[in-house]
């Protein structure tokens, strides 16, 4: 008995420090955030704080800047999530079917962008997508007119999709490869013998059988969409044309110091993530 109690004490003390970190620096701020979102806390006048209930949340719904930030994030998500999911599934299938040393090498290359921080990713792509940059030059060689990749809010959203797909493609490919590996290879072998085309393999074998993995990829990609920040910030540093949820939250909280409002924005973002995760899991469970 004594040994058991001692063991339990050791268990608690081993978990303890990590737990302490998370409680002080995550759980407490989370709760404090929630409280702040119900107030009109203005950082430069901290003593002038009043409880305003759900006012921040309601005001935000009517706030044009918030709406446009939300719409930009939404537009991003609507393009990014399907594109990255489809592209990484197709790529993973290609790698899976053509398994050899060369494709292993390809896989390694594809994964490199995953490690590169989004700010660096953005800087590299901005250099390529600038008016006078190499991408436009390449387009001109194909007789396509120049595109102002960074010139309008839609273009910026599109460019951000390009950057973000670039970064996370390899990551999702690995997920899908794991999922594809769970499919007995004999299914693919029989399909090949039966003369099934590549597209049919994709549609009738791969997609239905990687449902679980797809859920993970979709949820992850949604989280990525909500967290878009560094890419947009690197383009205009909060200077205007485009705000997404995160950048708008940052500006509200640390430029205008309206932290009550800022925390409400953050909570909206958290809600969106929870909602989408929940919906995705539900939908895929029932399919």
């Amino acid at each position, binding site marked *: 008995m004594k040994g058991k109690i001692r063991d339990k004490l050791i268990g608690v003390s081993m978990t303890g420090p990590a737990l302490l970190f998370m409680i002080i620096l995550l759980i407490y701020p989370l709760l404090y955030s929630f409280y702040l979102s119900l107030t009109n806390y203005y950082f430069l006048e901290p003593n002038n704080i009043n409880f305003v209930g759900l006012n921040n949340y309601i005001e935000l719904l009517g706030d044009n800047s918030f709406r446009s930030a939300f719409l930009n994030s939404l537009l991003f998500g609507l393009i990014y999530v399907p594109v990255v999911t489809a592209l990484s599934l197709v790529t993973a299938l290609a790698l899976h079917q053509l398994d050899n040393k060369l494709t292993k090498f390809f896989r390694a290359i594809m994964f*490199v962008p995953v490690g590169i921080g989004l*700010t660096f990713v953005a800087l590299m792509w901005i250099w390529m997508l600038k008016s006078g940059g190499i991408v436009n030059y390449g387009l001109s060689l194909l007789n396509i007119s120049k595109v102002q990749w960074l010139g309008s809010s839609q273009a910026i959203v599109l460019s951000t999709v390009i950057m973000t797909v670039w970064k996370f493609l390899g990551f999702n490919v690995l997920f899908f490869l794991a999922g594809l590996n769970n499919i007995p290879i004999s299914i693919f072998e029989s399909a090949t013998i039966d003369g099934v085309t590549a597209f049919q393999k994709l549609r009738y074998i791969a997609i239905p059988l990687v449902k679980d993995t797809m859920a993970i990829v979709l949820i992850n990609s949604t989280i990525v969409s909500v967290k878009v920040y560094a890419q947009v910030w690197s383009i205009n540093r909060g200077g205007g044309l485009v705000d997404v949820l995160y950048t708008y939250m940052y500006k509200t909280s640390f430029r205008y110091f309206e932290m009550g409002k800022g925390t409400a924005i953050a909570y909206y973002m958290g809600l969106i993530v929870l909602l989408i995760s929940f919906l995705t899991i539900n939908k895929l469970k029932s399919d």
Partner: protein
Amino acid sequence: MINGGVILKLKLSEKAIGYTILVVVVIYCIAPIFWMAVTSFKTEEEIYRTPPTVIPEEVTFDNYISVIQRSEQFPTYFKNSVIVSITTVVLTVFLASFAGYSLARIPFPGSGLILGFIILILGLPYGLYLIPLYIMFFNINILDTYMALILPYIALNLPWGVLILRANFKQIPQHIEDAARVDGCGQFRIYYSIMLPMVKPALVTAALWIFLNVWGELLLVMTLTETASMRTLSWGLLTLRDEAQAFAYGTLAPAIIISIVPVIILFLALQNYYVKGMTEGSFR
């Protein structure tokens, strides 16, 4: 590893489609890095020339020298990134392996609850913590210090680290631990001499991921540090770009390359560890 090495007999058209897709994707993945690297070795004049040259006519190391020796801020940014990243990695892995082990192997009251919390926290955007952290750190006067970054980074990376290590510890067969107990090993000794070495790949994987997360992070740096002397590469490069006249990429390109080279090297060198970890045990 891809599909267990089974060679499928595919039609020629299938192979053609497959390889075309892969080649396009690979070019997509390499192009920005390649182009930035090429730019970094060009002379200022050649960088802005139209039509642009794909292979530099004149290779120069001037830009690199300028960034390393003549720039005042770049070495500081680099140093800060290194200090913050490595400290965070070491401390987080240390704490996470303790917690992961005890959550996997030592049932104690509340452990399930703790686990639930951790999973819940994972998906939330960390902007939720940002404002209170700023206020808290402002009040105890640690804004704009290494701690202002390291402490939150540890907290932010712990949930994931704990989960990964716990999953790995759980996979160790119970009988190994039982045998050690029978031999008279105390709990801590079991952890240190037996369990820990067995999860080495997971430790390396976790360390790598945490390092990458911290090295490239922007939001916390922007918010919780204020002076250039404390800032890291991500924010630093943005500043360098904006301060240089009209986004002069002559000095920026080598800075970017230097910032991402450690990442790329680590990634390629440690491939064996994390690929296995990612695709096998870790997502139960």
